[in-house]
């Protein structure tokens, strides 16, 4: 369709506004993280749009801060553990759902995937109560298990797409050549599916990395913290804004980085079930 001059201007204005709104908070995050004290605590004067003396001192402070290192490590452990759990449980299920069209497979797939629509804020209290009785509160394993509950549906969804893209001939060929179903799944299909599954695992990692609700409820009364929980805990001490921003940057960097690596899969994950 031909564009008139007017629509072009409307489009350009919209674009500038949209990008401005999207970028402003990100810019502010970076700005605050490299701000020196005088640019944050201004005593009533205007806060500058760019720090008077840009500095990395907040990051140095974080590097020296035991709680930050501990929280980062805990976040990492929980995220990796939830990747392992959800991949081990979700991948074979996805394979079965794609390759063995037994009666009810579609219903089962829909059920398993739609578990992700269950509101986390509703499930968090019963999970914390249950985990308290079995001693999983305030533990890496407990949070990882809760996160897996969120991520297994994603793994199943993404892995189903990956397996669907692998021709059935490959499974059948392996079987005709003498492989059992398990052997052909592990030795033939999984290696071929690896790139797609890697994307799924990055997605699951990020899901756990920035998850707040379960981590907060499960860890609040203990000494463990993930990075998001640490951020919230620090907030209650009314700290300097530049420290908050520095932690935010550290928390966001892996997410932004990985998102661009697996953008394609992120989008399918984010819009999972939306577009068929």
């Amino acid at each position: 369709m031909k564009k008139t001059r007017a629509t072009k201007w409307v489009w350009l204005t919209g674009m500038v506004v949209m990008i401005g709104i999207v970028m402003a908070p990100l810019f502010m995050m970076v700005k605050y993280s490299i701000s020196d004290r005088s640019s944050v605590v201004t005593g009533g004067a205007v806060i500058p749009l760019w720090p008077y003396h840009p500095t990395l001192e907040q990051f140095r402070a974080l590097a020296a801060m035991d709680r930050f290192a501990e929280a980062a490590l805990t976040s990492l452990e929980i995220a990796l553990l939830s990747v392992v759990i959800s991949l081990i449980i979700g991948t074979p299920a996805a394979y079965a759902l794609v390759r063995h069209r037994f009666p009810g497979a579609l219903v089962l797939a829909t059920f398993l995937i739609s578990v992700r629509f269950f509101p986390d804020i509703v499930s968090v209290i019963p999970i914390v109560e249950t985990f308290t009785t079995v001693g999983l509160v305030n533990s890496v394993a407990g949070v990882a298990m809760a996160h897996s509950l969120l991520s297994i549906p994603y793994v199943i969804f993404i892995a189903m797409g990956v397996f669907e893209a692998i021709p059935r001939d490959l499974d059948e060929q392996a079987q005709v050549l003498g492989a059992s179903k398990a052997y052909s799944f592990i030795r033939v299909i999984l290696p071929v599916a690896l790139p797609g599954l890697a994307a799924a695992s990055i997605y699951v990692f990020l899901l756990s990395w920035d998850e707040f609700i379960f981590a907060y409820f499960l860890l609040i009364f203990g000494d463990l913290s993930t990075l998001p929980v640490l951020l919230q805990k620090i907030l209650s001490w009314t700290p300097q804004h530049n420290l908050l921003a520095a932690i935010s940057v550290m928390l966001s960097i892996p997410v932004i980085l990985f998102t661009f690596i697996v953008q394609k899969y992120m989008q399918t994950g984010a819009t999972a079930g939306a577009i068929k």
Partner: protein
Amino acid sequence: MHYLFQGIRKNLFAILILTPAFLYLAGFLLIILFKVTALALTEAGPEGAIFPSAVNFITLAGNPEFREALIRTVWFTLIGTPLELFTGIAAAFLVVEEFRGRGIIRSVLVLPLAVPAIVTAIILYILFDYPGGHINDIITGRHSFFPFQVLSYPINWRGSGFFALMVSLFGKVWRDMPISMLIILAGLQAINRDQLEAAATLGATALQRFMRITLPLLAPAIATVLVLRSIELWKEFIFPFILAGSYPLLSTLIERAYHEWRNPREASAIALILLLLIILSTVLIFYTLKWLRKRLVRI
């Protein structure tokens, strides 16, 4: 029976590798539903627990804090859902046509999705600070690049229920915009250009083309956005938790009931009410859309 046995044997491998996922998800779901219902229906009497009991719901009904939270949540969702839809549509229309640098712009517009929600909330916490804070600096005309004094005094964003929830909503919409955008974009790209051009040759104006062709064809994508986003808004926790602590929604009231009131039973009752609201609203939206589509297709 024999048939069933044969079916199991034939699909033994599939059943074997499906079982862990099924047990994990269905098991958790069952525990959650059982536990939340049990807690919500339990009364902590002086001589031990009484079950079943409606006391938690009765107490909540008489609690002004709960009633306010319920009203806030309804407003939050009612305003937020269309807002999410419109930002998504706007963003999608910005990038649907081919132009130079479209890939990069698209990636930039997806960025909010890549920022952890808690980080976005914290940044908004900083920006909407009182009395300092960038936003207050701007609206009181203290920055040279925006020399208009909208207000003579700074706003206490977190000290007012209205503003606190607006800021939370801004954060929520900001972060979710890419998801809505991507869904609408997929819907837009599925629309055949020829249809629009055919309509143009038949004399339809741009507005008519949008109303008569683009919008109805976009209906499934819009429906998806509305359903998914409204669920998200009902249960939104992080933004109101960080930015509107004194003005709880149902979700943040659950946290307060659990941690401050030390009352898991009432917390569960609120959770159950929230769950019912979500289900009800989803069903309602679903049927409204179905009804609307029937109307739209009429000649």
